[in-house]
């Protein structure tokens, strides 16, 4: 009988822990899923169409990288109760504070433009004119945050996150096409990839994948979300677990996008090269068996729209949180529009200006998309170094400073990112070195 009561006790304990975990769940999953934003989907689609399954192995590296970097924001937020912008001001003074925030607003705005490009393109596949999408989407994006409760925002956003998984069935259908290789080719991509030579284009593609998986806005977003949600040191372990789950999901979805586009385009005879996500959706139609083609196209469009939507939501929020922290304005989703006017105004302004740029005929959108990725990757090292220095500050973190292992991993990541982005910088300036 003793073991019976013991088992009941364990089940009960597990049930309690599960409830706590579910209540903590949110920021990590959202930030990670939103990480597969419109730009990300394009990047993965291009990767798949150019390299087939041979770059799938990078997710084995990107998964721990995403986890280790984002996990630090959970601890920093829960222990210091400050958003990232506030923490930089506190830790490094106003110069670096302003540097970080101005950078962040700039990149966020540019990224937001790419999200609108993605959303408008996705909806145009359904025949909806861009300006209608712009107005409706912006209105919905504002409605999601203005409920005056962080909780409502989080649950609505988690619902939107589910749509990100449409790429999994899309990939399974794509693997059904006659020219697609068998599934064991997919697994080969993880353990025995055949990438061809090492050249500048490969670096660029790897860097682009890296740049969409770890971004400065994610660091800002998750930390502010953790603070706004009111997580404390007791919740850190669950927050880490949730971030781990999020990192796994984002890599899973990304891998499936590559599988889908690889199967459909790279292994097609002749191979089809695509430039962005919208083309993917259009090019996929004729390849699919009757009936499936249109469905796959729609799934891709829905996925792309959802990715842009989540990205836009999180990026604008990250910006309003950070500006609120720096200027001392009320900045919480738990406050109504009346009580935190600036917070919601910044949010809305970011959305409207970025969306309006996309509506301008002949705006240099391709250049902006390229520029975003380059700038984001070059600024990432700075953000990472700030984060690492803060996480090693005992006055700030107390007993929650980075452990030796965490430091080894994270400094490794930071150095890797620095090397990769320097390579990229050098290659852009002196292309002849790598040919």
């Amino acid at each position: 009988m003793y073991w019976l009561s013991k088992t009941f006790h364990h089940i009960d304990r597990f049930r309690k822990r599960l409830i706590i975990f579910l209540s903590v769940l949110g920021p990590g999953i959202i930030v990670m899923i939103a990480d597969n934003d419109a730009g990300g989907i394009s990047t993965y689609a291009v990767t798949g169409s150019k390299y087939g399954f041979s770059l799938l192995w990078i997710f084995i590296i990107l998964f721990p990288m995403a986890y280790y970097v984002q996990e630090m924001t959970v601890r920093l937020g829960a222990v210091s109760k400050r958003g990232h912008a506030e923490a930089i001001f506190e830790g490094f003074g106003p110069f670096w504070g302003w540097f970080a925030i101005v950078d962040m607003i700039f990149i966020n705005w540019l990224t937001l433009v790419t999200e609108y490009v993605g959303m408008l393109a996705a909806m145009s596949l359904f025949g909806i004119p861009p300006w209608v999408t712009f107005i409706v989407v912006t209105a919905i994006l504002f409605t999601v945050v203005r409920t005056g409760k962080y909780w409502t925002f989080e649950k609505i956003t988690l619902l939107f996150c589910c749509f990100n998984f449409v790429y999994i069935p899309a990939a399974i259908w794509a693997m059904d096409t006659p020219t697609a290789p068998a599934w064991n080719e997919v697994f080969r991509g993880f353990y025995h990839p055949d990438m061809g030579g090492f050249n500048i284009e490969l670096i660029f593609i790897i860097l682009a994948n890296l740049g969409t998986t770890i971004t400065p806005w994610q660091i800002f977003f998750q930390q502010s979300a953790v603070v706004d949600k009111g997580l404390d040191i007791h919740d850190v372990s669950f927050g880490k677990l949730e971030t781990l789950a999020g990192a796994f999901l984002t890599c899973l979805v990304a891998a499936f996008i590559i599988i889908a586009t690889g199967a459909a385009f790279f292994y097609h005879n002749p191979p089809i090269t695509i430039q962005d996500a919208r083309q993917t959706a259009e090019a996929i139609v004729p390849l699919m068996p009757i009936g499936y083609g249109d469905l796959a196209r729609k799934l891709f469009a829905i996925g792309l729209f959802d990715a842009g939507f989540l990205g836009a939501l999180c990026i604008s929020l990250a910006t309003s949180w950070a500006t609120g922290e720096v200027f001392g304005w009320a900045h919480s989703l738990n406050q109504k529009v009346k009580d935190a006017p600036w917070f919601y105004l910044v949010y809305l302004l970011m959305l409207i200006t970025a969306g309006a740029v996309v509506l301008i005929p002949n705006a240099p959108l391709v250049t902006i998309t390229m520029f975003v990725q380059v700038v984001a990757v070059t600024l990432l090292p700075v953000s990472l170094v700030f984060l690492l220095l803060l996480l090693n500050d005992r006055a700030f973190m107390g007993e929650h400073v980075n452990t030796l292992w965490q430091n080894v991993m994270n400094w490794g990541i930071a150095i890797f990112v620095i090397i990769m982005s320097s390579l990229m910088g050098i290659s852009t300036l002196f292309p002849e070195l790598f040919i």
Partner: protein
Amino acid sequence: MIADKNSKLKVIDHHPGFEQFRFLFFSELLKLPVCREKIKNRIGKLSDLVFLHKEPYPEAVGIYIEHGWGKPTEFIPWPNVIKIEDDAIFVRPPESGDVYPPFVDQPGWILMDKHLMGKTVLDIDGRQVEVVNDVHFLETRGLLLLVHVDVSFGGFFRRWGLGKYELVNSNLISWKYVQPLSVEDAVSTDKVTLSVTKKQMLELPSEDLADILEELPGDEQQVLFSALDNEKAAETLMEAEPRAQRQIIANLREEKARKILSEMSTPQLAGLFTVLPHDDVTELMAYLSKDQAERVRNILSQREISARTIMSSDFFHVAKTDNVGDVLNTIRRSGRDPKSISYIYVVNGDGQTLLGVVDLRELVLTPDHLTMSEVMISPVVAAEEDDVQDDLVEMFLKYHYHMIPVVDRNDRILGVLYHNDIDNLISQ
């Protein structure tokens, strides 16, 4: 008091036997030319009106005139004012010299434009934060009294010269219920608190004060919070939202922080500390006694908090053979915190085994000669020392008691749990 019939500054003088009086808005007086006896002898424009704080209504003490261009300011004492007309204010010449002496701020003085117009005040009656758009004066017997502030947009329009259209109705709040929140010293740049802290404000429930604090920007939050006495400040702090709590703590001076912390129980401190940044916690921990800091740290380090960690030793117990009259006398002389005597625990002589409990209200109504064992309720609802917070919350929800005793395996009473301590730990 002479004013012509078409004046917009109305004079009410109907009933014989009543004093002549009229109401004026500050916006009507601001920038009005000030002249020495005749309209030709213009001194300057009224830059501000100076009032002396008095109960119930502050009285005007003078007119403040700025000339700009680096010229010295002038201060015209109120007794020198002859009359206020539509187009000018007429004053007597200074007693000596050609110009009035420059303005020097004094304690207890309030400047209308500088300290009130456009500033936030607390409406103690309505328990709301408002912005002063105009100030309403009563002029009578040569005195000018500050009687109301106008928080409507009407005052706002009047400030911009649109008063004559009467676009909206005024919303006047009696000065009795107005608590100014931030006052800048007119001369120096330091912010100082106005010495006006109304008694009614200190009597507002701490829940309302917390709501008000959450709405205020940093400086004003600080001014209002520093006006509260330590006990009220501690209660208000615990009622406030985490964000406001962090802001208040960040701006607190050490001395005040020590006093406020000493008003709080260990579980309450732990509840507060979980929402504070780590560096602030380190600082505040240093203000606690070593023993208390240890207990707080103990609570903070656990995910599941047991009854033993948060129980208080502040409870009242008597032997079962004591009679009611003696017990009541002991309580009266004990000088205990009222909340700790809502229940009296009855124990047996030797090992403090908990036998029963008596509600204080019950006790008061019972004849003096009965013994405690005759009036006590038994068995007692008690928590085991190892019960964790979820069990405790459930227990409080189920029985609706303010306090519940904590016992060990042998039913010996170890301490008590207070409902609001549990509340504080759960709400985080």
